């Protein structure tokens, strides 16, 4: 498809899903800015899927920005680093944005921050794929858009992987940090993609971008025009286009059966934010100490896309954005996008590796808190479910506690995207039902 004549909304897609009001114009032309650094950060030792880290420092220790402060012997894990130069004042359980309390290293520090402690000092052009992977592992990189799966594990595959897909779909409403990154850091992103291709031996990179980001599509298309091995793929603006399986299916046509790791399908999907972090880790030796997030909401004065230190508490971010955290009665504060992100009750929660945004939604915008009613079998959830499930069945069976039957209706295939609950005229909290049932089933076995 020619990027020059592409119109907004056009592009390839998958079967199912739907367009959801975007609210992206609130922040999609606000350039990336660096947010002030807080005096205190809360760094969870568990910011990834896999095994939690063990702390490498003790209370009272002086730490330097970028110093590794937690690591694990387990294969599926990722180290964490000090995101502030200063003193460790506590190592204790604190609320994580995902809800439960986890061990966190609390660091206080003021003033001179100094340079970060680099993870690798080699010239990337002379590094072998193994050395590149080690740098990525040491930098603590994880998927920054979704499940926070350790990047090192993802790319450390012995299977031949011919295709790299960069996920620039950013299909969640409100979020624009990936958009700005693609516009403002295109060269670095391409270098990051080159590094990933060398790591996995891929021959081709596709950059999937929803066509509500025409400027990003144009910039990356023109920068990759001369290259045979890189191609920008405009995608229809349809939620949840950015989910890995649908991206693979949309771009490569390959089916994604349950349980198959994407490497087994010959392709690896990486979020553009992660790819940029790969560039920073390998070229500048920078550990994963900060990320870009979107701070937005219709009534947030200084909304925008900010580089923030990991571990920065929500109330600090809100104040920097001009919001008084004590005046938020009746609002929702969400970490992540409005479809899958979690509403927070404690504004001490820190930004973690996969926090894509901090949103403040006033009550008129969020789901009305009306009681839900019986399923009237309108069928819209069935039409829209991107995983071709029967959400109404799952919700009814869950009400009756029929967990065995829920497994027959493929509950484990549900990606919890929220489309079904978004469309349901009976206001049924289907995703909530599914999550609850998954927990119950897990505890039964």
């Amino acid at each position: 498809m020619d990027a020059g004549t592409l119109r907004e909304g056009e592009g390839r897609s998958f079967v199912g899903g739907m367009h959801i009001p975007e609210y992206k114009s609130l922040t999609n032309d606000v350039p990336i800015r660096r947010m002030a650094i807080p005096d205190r950060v809360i760094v969870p030792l568990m910011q990834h899927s896999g095994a939690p880290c063990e702390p490498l420092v003790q209370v009272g220790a002086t730490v330097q920005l970028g110093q590794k402060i937690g690591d694990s012997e387990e294969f599926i894990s990722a180290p964490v680093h000090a995101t502030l130069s200063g003193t460790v004042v506590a190592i204790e359980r604190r609320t994580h944005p995902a809800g439960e309390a986890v061990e966190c290293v609390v660091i206080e520090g003021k003033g001179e921050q100094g340079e970060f402690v680099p993870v690798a000092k080699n010239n990337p052009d002379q590094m072998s794929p193994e050395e590149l992977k080690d740098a990525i592992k040491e930098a603590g990189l994880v998927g920054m858009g979704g499940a926070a799966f350790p990047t090192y594990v993802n790319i450390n595959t012995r299977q031949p992987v011919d295709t790299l897909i960069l996920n620039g779909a950013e299909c969640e409403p409100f979020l624009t940090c990936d958009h700005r990154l693609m516009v403002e850091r295109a060269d670095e992103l391409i270098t990051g993609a080159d590094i990933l291709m060398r790591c996995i031996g891929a021959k081709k990179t596709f950059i999937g971008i929803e066509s509500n980001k025409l400027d990003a599509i144009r910039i990356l298309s023109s920068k990759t025009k001369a290259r045979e091995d890189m191609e920008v793929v405009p995608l229809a603006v349809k939620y949840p286009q950015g989910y890995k399986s649908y991206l693979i299916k949309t771009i490569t046509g390959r089916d994604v059966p349950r349980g198959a790791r994407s490497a087994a399908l010959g392709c690896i999907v990486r979020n553009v934010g992660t790819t940029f972090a790969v560039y920073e880790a390998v070229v500048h030796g920078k550990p994963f100490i900060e990320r870009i997030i979107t701070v937005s909401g219709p009534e947030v004065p200084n909304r925008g896309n900010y580089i923030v230190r990991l571990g920065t508490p929500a109330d600090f971010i809100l104040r920097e954005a001009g919001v008084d955290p004590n005046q938020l009665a009746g609002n929702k504060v969400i970490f992540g996008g409005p479809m899958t992100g979690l509403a927070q009750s404690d504004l001490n929660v820190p930004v973690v590796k996969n926090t894509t945004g901090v949103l403040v939604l006033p009550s008129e915008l969020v789901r009305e808190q009306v009681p839900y009613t019986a399923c009237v079998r309108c069928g819209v959830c069935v039409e829209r479910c991107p995983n071709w499930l029967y959400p109404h069945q799952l919700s009814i069976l869950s009400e009756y506690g029929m967990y065995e039957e829920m497994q027959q209706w493929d509950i484990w295939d549900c990606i919890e995207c929220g489309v079904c609950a978004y469309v349901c005229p009976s206001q049924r909290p289907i995703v909530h039902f599914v999550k609850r049932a998954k927990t119950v089933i897990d505890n039964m076995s």
Partner: protein
Amino acid sequence: MKQSALIVTPPPHLKLERTVGGAMRDVMLALLPISAVSVYFYHAFALKLISLCVVTALATEYVFRRARGQRVTLSDGSAALTGLFVALLFSPTTPVLTAMLATFLAVGVAKELMGGLGRNRLNPALFGRVAIIFLAPLLPFLNQIPLYWSVDTVTRATPLAKLAQGWDMPSTWELFVAFPGGALSETSPLALLVGAAFLLYRGHIRWHIPVSMLASIFVLTFILGQNPVQHLVTGGIMLGAFFMATDWVTSPITKQGKLIFGFAIGVLVVIFRLFLPPPEGVAFSILIMNAFVPLLERVTRRASFSEPVSAPTTG
């Protein structure tokens, strides 16, 4: 620091502006043209019948919900809509008690006793209408109170009856646009199509059921040497195809299921019309197929996106 006044509910945090009540109101709006035509032809008869059925429906739901200690949900509009449907299924001279009993059976038995909106298996309005066919001969007192004392202006033979008896027929075009005779809803297929177009446009119904149902009637009557168009514009076929068979609760949720459902109804309608006595063939056909919905959904269940297609990829 706990900000207790923050709203904390599970995702998704956005919600499409779409409610059951809104959909019911849209269906009532879609029935406005046909109601208007019936009032045009039948004057006070139609108005009286409609109000009688709607009020009975609301009262029935209220009493049933109250008696069983449930939340009264008149505001979702489903009771009123059922009442309107029942009225449209009757002819203007229907006696008062007959219409009331049909509405009571529709809302009280077919809907509320089955567990309320969403849990009923049979289309409530059709259930009420058909039940009357069986009950009326057993309960002669139902005829005691006519809707209006002088009724001679409207007692004409319906087009369908004329068709059956080989009488002179009004032209198909007249029948299509507007022609008095029969139930309120049988006066104008055109008015029903206008309403149906609105429902399709608003996304409340899908094309699968009406198209497969009308297509199977058309093809079968044609094969059997009948005038297919004349069949389509007479009797309850249009109301059945667009408003009754498409009822969310009592039709299959799968696309293939919808196609089979509509097709089977069409076949049954033709069998009733050509080979069996009862005149309410459309109502019978839809009710029969209502009973097969769970089966249809089972056999047309689609595979999950994540279902391995052929041989699973071995890792």
